[in-house]
């Protein structure tokens, strides 16, 4: 009843082309942003901000990066964690070696480094597709970690190969507490998500989707294959690189190259599969599901044993958590193969008809 676009007339092209054409959506997004920027830091404690919401945002950004490449441009990649590692380690090096640069330019430069690596390892995509491309991007995953571990320059010759992220200072303002780091992360994620949303509505985005749907047809209508594919790799890697920088600087603080193993690449791939391939919202939903749900299960099992006095051995609970999580992934994929984002879309369509469906 409330969610209905009847009576909202578009009289200019600008109105017709805005990101959220329905007024209720605009209001909802506005409220969500106010909530995220004002209410969450006020009511969230350190645990919520530092251990749950900040990593969720960071992984959502990484998933968004992968979604641009896999979901929109149709190039399967398993190198996400490697791009994150490049972002994290290069930001550290830029801040260390060029301290006058400041943290934001360092992160952008690190993102560009990740983009460069992405372009190099994206070259095989010009010849191979699908699973074969995924295997080719595996090379990136192993090469980057190998380089970070072998060349001391990347870690400033630390004996254990670990880097400790420097303090985040912007124009004399320090970002120390979890709430401040959360706001910093949120600001970057919001800007980049908005940019991604717009990019996908532009000519570039349409070219990506054309390549995804059928690359022969796309090249016939005049979309340059090499440029489009490599651009997709570059943009995607840039997003992942910035996510990696945030992961090191706003979340863990100290990172070793082993934090960015293939395991993490797979987790991010699962995020977009569960959240919705080719959807900005899906990246966020998938990241929330993969990062927060296991923790929720873990805490819930604790209540079970507290609240009902059921004594279950901890090892059983830990294993059960993985089993339930795996089961739910299968359930969601069967119930809605297009991901959680599609579920949301269906809900929206139903809401428009509610309470009088045909």
């Amino acid at each position, binding site marked *: 009843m409330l969610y209905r676009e009847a009576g909202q007339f578009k009289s200019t092209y600008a109105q017709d082309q805005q990101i959220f054409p329905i007024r209720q959506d605009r209001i909802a997004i506005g409220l969500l942003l106010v909530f995220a920027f004002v209410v969450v830091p006020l009511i969230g*404690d*350190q*645990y919520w901000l*530092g*251990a*749950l919401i900040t*990593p969720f945002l960071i992984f959502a950004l990484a998933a968004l990066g992968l979604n641009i490449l896999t979901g929109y441009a149709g190039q399967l990649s398993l190198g996400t964690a490697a791009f994150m590692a490049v972002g994290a380690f290069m930001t550290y090096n830029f801040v260390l070696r060029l301290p006058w640069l400041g943290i934001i330019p360092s992160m952008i430069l690190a993102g560009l480094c990740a983009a460069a690596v992405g372009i190099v390892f994206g070259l095989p995509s010009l010849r191979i597709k699908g699973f074969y491309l995924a295997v080719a991007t595996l090379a990136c995953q192993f090469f980057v970690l190998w380089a970070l*571990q072998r060349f001391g320059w990347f870690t400033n010759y630390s*004996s*254990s*190969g*670990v880097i*400790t992220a*420097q303090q985040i200072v912007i124009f004399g303002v320090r970002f*120390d507490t979890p709430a401040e780091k959360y706001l910093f992360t949120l600001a970057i994620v919001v800007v980049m998500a908005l940019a991604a949303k717009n990019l996908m509505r532009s000519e570039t985005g349409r070219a990506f989707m054309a390549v995804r749907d059928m690359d022969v047809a796309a090249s016939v209508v005049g979309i340059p294959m090499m440029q489009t594919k490599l651009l997709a790799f570059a943009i995607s890697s840039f997003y992942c690189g910035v996510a990696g920088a945030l992961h090191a600087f706003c*979340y*863990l*603080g*100290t*990172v*070793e190259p*082993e*934090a960015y*193993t293939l395991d993490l690449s797979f987790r991010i791939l699962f995020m977009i599969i569960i959240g919705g391939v080719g959807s900005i919202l899906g990246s966020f939903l998938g990241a929330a599901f993969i990062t927060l749900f296991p*923790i*929720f299960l*873990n*805490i*819930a099992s*604790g*209540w079970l044993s*507290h*609240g009902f006095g059921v004594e279950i*051995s*901890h*090892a059983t*609970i*830990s*294993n059960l*958590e*993985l089993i339930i999580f795996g089961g739910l992934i299968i359930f969601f994929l069967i*119930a*809605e193969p297009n991901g959680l984002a599609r*579920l949301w879309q*269906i*809900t929206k369509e139903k809401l428009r008809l509610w309470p009088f469906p045909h």
Partner: protein
Amino acid sequence: MKRSTLAIGALALAAVAGPALNPAAAQNEQFIPANFYWVGPYAPGGSGFGGGMIDYFAMLNERDGGINGVKLTWEKCETEYRNDRGVECYERSKKKGPTGATVVHPLSTGITYSLIEKATADKIPVISMGYGRTDAADGRVFPYIFPLITTYWSQNTAKIKFIGMKEGGMDKLKGKKIVNIYHDSAYGKETIPVLDVQAKKYGFQITHIAVPHPGNEQQSQWLQVRQIRPDWVILRGWGVMNPTALKAAAKVGFPRTKIVGVWWSGAEEDVIPAGDAAKGYIAAGFNLPGTSFPVMQEVLKHVYKKGKGDLEDNARIGSIYHTRGIVAGIITTEAIRNAQSRFGKGKPMTGEQVRWGIENLNIDEKRLKELGATGLMQPLRVSCMDHEGGGAVKFLQWDGRKWTVITDWIAADQSIVRPMIEASAAQYAKEKSITPRDCSKEK
């Protein structure tokens, strides 16, 4: 679809209502988080160590009613040996109990690294007993981090001393070849610089060979060992890498009596899967296995006889990881006892107070006897300057069925280790603009 949205809503509701289910925490309790790992490739280490620590706490609660009447409480949290889950567990546990988390044992070098700054800001001491960041032994720069008993670097100098003893004197090391086979992670790489320094000092040749995580494929590494023909191999493994290394050594015919392992390569779980290939293998240890120690008998009597033990498999009682957990329990509770003697007996202590307790900990032979832990661990004396405290290790040899002790406590060579620690800590202090504390002003 409707039904599943309903289910999600119900889950969300449960998330909001859930905390209300928790019983109100009693005031006279001391909370210590048990953030270990019970699943995954490193579960034997996590469950054994965690089980030992919890068993010791349970024994104190049963026998003495806690520490001066303050009951010990704990809560398990699964870290899966993963840094992000470790941080999540830490954040979750730090506000529990009347005084919050008192001491954290991360039981992972990676998680320790991630917690250094967070715990220092939250004033919660981190005990990384036999692992973690070596230069944290300089307590002036790292007030809240305690790599107690012995660090990787100390242990390594003891290992070279042991090899020297076997060769008939340190001067005999000249021209010898030693290979360092290490787990390719922050943990594995930690000892490379100290080995290089010693190689220069004693004139032996050192080759570092990395084994990628998790280490279940080592054929090429051991072929390399065969080409080098070293006199000794130092095994710096973890988890499944250890039995694989021993089996690979047997395959290329390298004598296992010439392989010296770090203490994370020296538990029953590391050698039994290798079967006969492990016979004769030597490993360092800062705690000894067995159930003959009086403190182990107390644990058996008060905890396991009543069916309250934490280990599910009784055969693991008294294993290396289990007694290592007992040692962790002893150190933790002694630190709390020490803090109580200064800040008020019979009261729960805050993290800050326990920090003082650890820094001024002095477990001498007499106290070890009272605890029933003579021989289980070495005497420990911590100070503001020295957050390590002990530094000595014993060497154990696997005879195919059990570990036998083959040396007395071998002290580390602090003349090598300490300057390196101080230099490294000073560099960290400079990077982080920390002003080191003045230890003469600490009370």
